[in-house]
């Protein structure tokens, strides 16, 4: 029998707390770099907006204020090694407690409510927790606070196999075009290709945890990322919809086998405020 590594869920709670506080106040390095490059490339109102955004992050760090007031619905991705034994309070409770403490201590906005009564839960819980069991004895934790100006512009399409690669690119570009100025462009586009209705959407979310500008290891997937990005940036929407050549900072696709009858494509839009923190326990 393999010796199990015991981890108390208090450690996960503390990790969620740490990552949430950091994520609220800072952009990912790849996002910051992409914004700086876009600022160099653009002119006029778009340049004004991009330089304001770069300055905004510096203000956030200096004043210890969230970069964006939409501190998001807390998405937590946990990859749990199958040789890990979890002890302590139930996992979802531990994750929620980490969120609750961070959103209180960080003066983050509480943006979670009942979908029907619209009553605010008051502490930004529950977190959207995704767990995957993986080989090994470690836990990898990703914290992604997801703003809804961009989440609202996301779409899932069940294409036919005949629509193929062309249909995938068309769907990605169309989604960004319909979103227009509303999701805070320049956007970061996460795409799920294949799987089922539900797993496809999760792939799109996972794609957003990759570095902006990274390319998929599979050449045919990377070429979809590149073509979609190129076509999106020819739309002319630009930063904040003010016009320009940078409508998206990046496109990342994740792929999984699907059914012979289908081709699900999920497009998850992330605004230019890419906040995503990671840690391995």
């Amino acid at each position: 029998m393999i010796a199990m590594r015991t981890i108390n869920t208090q450690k996960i709670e503390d990790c969620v707390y740490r990552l949430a506080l950091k994520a609220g106040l800072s952009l990912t390095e790849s996002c910051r770099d992409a914004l700086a490059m876009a600022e160099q490339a653009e002119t006029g109102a778009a340049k004004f907006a991009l330089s304001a955004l770069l300055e905004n992050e510096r203000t956030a760090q200096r004043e210890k204020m969230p970069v964006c007031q939409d501190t998001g619905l807390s998405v937590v991705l946990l990859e749990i090694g199958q040789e890990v034994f979890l002890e302590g309070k139930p996992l979802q409770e531990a994750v929620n407690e980490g969120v609750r403490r961070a959103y209180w201590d960080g003066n983050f906005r509480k943006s979670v409510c009942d979908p029907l009564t619209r009553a605010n839960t008051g502490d930004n819980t529950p977190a959207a927790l995704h767990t995957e069991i993986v080989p090994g004895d470690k836990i990898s934790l990703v914290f992604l606070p997801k703003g809804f100006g961009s989440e609202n512009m996301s779409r899932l399409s069940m294409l036919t196999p005949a629509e193929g690669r062309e249909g995938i690119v068309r769907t990605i570009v169309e989604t960004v075009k319909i979103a227009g100025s509303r999701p805070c462009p320049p956007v970061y586009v996460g795409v799920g290709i294949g799987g089922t209705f539900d797993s496809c959407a999760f792939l799109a979310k996972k794609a957003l945890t990759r570095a902006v500008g990274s390319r998929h290891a599979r050449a045919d997937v990377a070429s979809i990322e590149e073509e979609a990005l190129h076509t999106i940036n020819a739309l002319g929407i630009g930063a904040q919809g003010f016009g320009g050549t940078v409508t998206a900072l990046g496109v990342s696709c994740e792929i999984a086998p699907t059914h012979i009858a289908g081709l699900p494509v999920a497009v998850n839009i992330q605004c230019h405020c890419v906040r995503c923190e990671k840690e391995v326990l």
Partner: protein
Amino acid sequence: MKKLTLPLERAQIEELRAGDAVLLSGVLYTARDCAHKRIFALLDEGKPLPFPLKDSFIYYAGPCPAPAGKACGSCGPTTSARMNSFAPRLLDSGLAGMIGKGEMSAETVEALKRNKGVYFAAIGGAGATYGNAVVRAECVAFPDLLSEAVYRMEVSDFPLVVAVDARGNSVYQRKSVYQRKEG
């Protein structure tokens, strides 16, 4: 950059052109989806509103809680398009304009033209910048809505872009999705 102080005369508003960058100071009222619904209910019942509509500006925003020693937490704009169903009636009732982010519908643009109003775009995502520019903030209605309540805010040098001017010209150069749908 042009500096403006609220309240604005309609003549001042008419001088603004889509694409102009301005620094705006003065008093604003925040309202998002839920607050708008309640304001409409009050209007329908003929009851008084918690703030004056005439010549006021609504800021589509819901701030983070204020850290110790500050008037307000992060406070950038939210997506204005969700308020398209509310904006025309408020403009017709005396509202001078709105501040938000992203394009608005043809109906809203028409109402801006009709009433000589203006729609300013704040830079979406620049929450720390705007929060830091709030000098004073006070909840004036619907406190149960938390960040979605109506706040009276005194702001200093909000960096904004004139998104739709009083002639109906828009900074969003492409036809808006709403206009595209209508052909």
